């Protein structure tokens, strides 16, 4: 048991790095997602297609391949990135693509009557968007976007493959010293599960609150 607690202590700083990576890339991914969601409906064909390609590639490639593309591929065209910025770029791309899909379908899920009613009331398109459509779409989009955040946190374990010192790397190094791989990886699993389970309980609670007045 002492060994297990020592493992947890050694892995804890890695958890900080993982949360940092998840937080940073989520903040960027939500912005990217909103931009992509709006660009997909753009009037110019070129813009529309470009946005779709960014989304489909971001969702269609394994995150591991995107990580390698950024960390091992970009140096060839002169971009040398440290593990953390490389991971943030790869995560932002992948998570942003998923976020844009969630935002797009949430915007589409607002009943068409709302848009028509706003037009009938003589609201300017800009105001209809900001005051009528976006608030309702946000209510639909927030729970899945929060679940996406949990997924992003779990995926930080992949950054181990590009030598970021997060939980998995700490666990692997610890295991190679003590040869107690089982104990150490169980400790890693407990850390991930603790964060993920607490977070998903919070999401569920928040979801209930969102729907309280509906």
């Amino acid at each position, binding site marked *: 048991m002492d060994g297990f607690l020592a493992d947890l202590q050694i892995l804890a700083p890695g958890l900080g790095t993982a949360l940092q990576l998840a937080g940073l890339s989520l903040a960027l991914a939500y912005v990217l997602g909103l931009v992509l969601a709006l660009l997909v409906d753009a009037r110019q064909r070129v813009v529309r297609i470009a946005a779709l390609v960014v989304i*489909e*590639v971001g969702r*269609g*490639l*394994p*995150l*591991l*391949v*995107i990580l*390698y*593309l950024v960390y*091992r*591929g*970009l*140096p*060839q*065209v002169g971009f040398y990135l440290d593990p953390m910025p490389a991971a943030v770029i790869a995560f932002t791309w992948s998570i942003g693509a998923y976020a844009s899909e969630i935002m797009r379908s949430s915007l589409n899920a607002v009943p068409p009557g709302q848009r028509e009613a706003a037009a009938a009331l003589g609201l300017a398109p800009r105001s209809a968007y900001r005051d009528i459509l976006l608030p309702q779409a946000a209510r639909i989009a927030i729970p899945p976007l929060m679940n996406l955040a949990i997924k992003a946190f*779990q*995926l930080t*374990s*992949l950054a*181990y*493959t590009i030598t970021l010192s997060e939980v*998995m790397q700490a*666990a*692997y190094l610890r*295991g190679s010293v003590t040869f*107690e*791989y*089982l*104990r*150490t*990886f*169980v400790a*890693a*699993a407990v850390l*991930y*599960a603790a964060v*993920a*389970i607490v977070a*998903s309980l919070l999401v569920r609670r928040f979801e209930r609150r969102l729907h309280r007045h509906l």
Partner: protein
Amino acid sequence: MFQYTGYILAGVVGTVAITVAAFLIGAVLGVPLAVASRSAYRVVRWPAISVIEVFRSVPNLVWLFLVFFGLPEVGIRLGPWATAIITLGVTSSAYLAEIYRGGFSGLGQGQWLASKALGLTTWDRGRYVLAPQLARVVSPTMATYAISLLKESALASTIGVVELTFRGGLVAQRTGDGLTTFVVVGLVYLVLSLPLAYTSRRVDSRLRAKFSVG
């Protein structure tokens, strides 16, 4: 780098084999898990729900390392291929059980009660009343899950399974051309997910045609 394209493409076999095998294991094991998680008995329901939650809250990479590096300490030694297939298969059962559960609750009690009133045995009710309707409801979601499993299979490369991503890594190392290599690898994943997306839409519309009432 392009003289290695054939070498990379040969990895398709491994990637598809892992995806298909893990999906089948998950689809089968997910059924009892889903049924148990909806049981009327708390002693059956709680363990099943806990198993589903724990499998889903720990990242797949952690499971892979736990099984590959940890389990040999307690005498369970699996090769890289077996580890990848069994681990991804078992964790998939939790994700698929959740999909089945969603399908169950979408069906409503009426079907189950009506078939009981008609005097069908429990087995016949499951086989002829619930299963066909469930298949229609859950098959698109299952296909979406299969696509994400295809991408998850890239994780197997981290424990030395020689599939698509692993081969890409080797070629990148050997040629020093990580950019082109991982672009090619990424394209292969995109192409592989296309037929799955196509089949899901086809199965969806065929099942809809077959079962739609009125």
